[in-house]
């Protein structure tokens, strides 16, 4: 799953550490989310959406697997 996390964070001038602190997760989790190695739980996805005041779909881009 692709996401716009890094783009949104940089647009707002927030450091990974600051975002991690606000969401009560580790900085490594933010890093893994940004480079697509880790997909968040629905709870964390909602927390991210609320933090950026966007919808989940504005942050995460779901692409169906080719058949």
């Amino acid at each position, binding site marked *: 799953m692709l996401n716009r996390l890094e783009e949104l964070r940089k647009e707002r001038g927030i450091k990974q550490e600051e975002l*991690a602190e606000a969401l*009560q*997760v*580790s900085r*490594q*989790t933010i890093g*893994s989310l940004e480079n697509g190695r*880790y997909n*968040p*739980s629905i*709870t*964390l996805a909602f927390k991210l959406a609320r933090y950026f005041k966007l919808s989940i779909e504005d942050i995460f881009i779901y692409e169906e697997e080719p058949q």
Partner: protein
Amino acid sequence: MNKPVWLEKGLLILGALLIAAGVLAALKGAEVWAGLGLGIGAGLVGANTATALMRRYYRRHPEEARQKRIELGDERNMAIRYQAKAKAFDRMILMMIAVPFLLIAAKSPLWLVLSAVGLYLLAYLLQIMYMVKLGKQI
């Protein structure tokens, strides 16, 4: 996850008593009881002393304690821990296949060979039991 302090202190005292009993048993020549007392006692004392020291350290360093709490509850870290445990179980099960054969080769008594096979089966039974239990919960 954390033990209550009273339990930690109780286990520490129990460990010290077991060490003392182990020393006494060693002096009286009861090697098996000495080994059990010293082994279990040292384990209890070591583990609970380490927990007490960590608790004390984190009380003095609240920022590190807060960071540790975040890392423990972090969902990615939890996913990593669960996956690591699952993979370790798979590897252990594979290695356990060899144990009964090694025991047979070492001419071990039948009850020991059957115990090793029993442990192997128990691991699978526990896996099935948890799959059924979690299947109902999740």
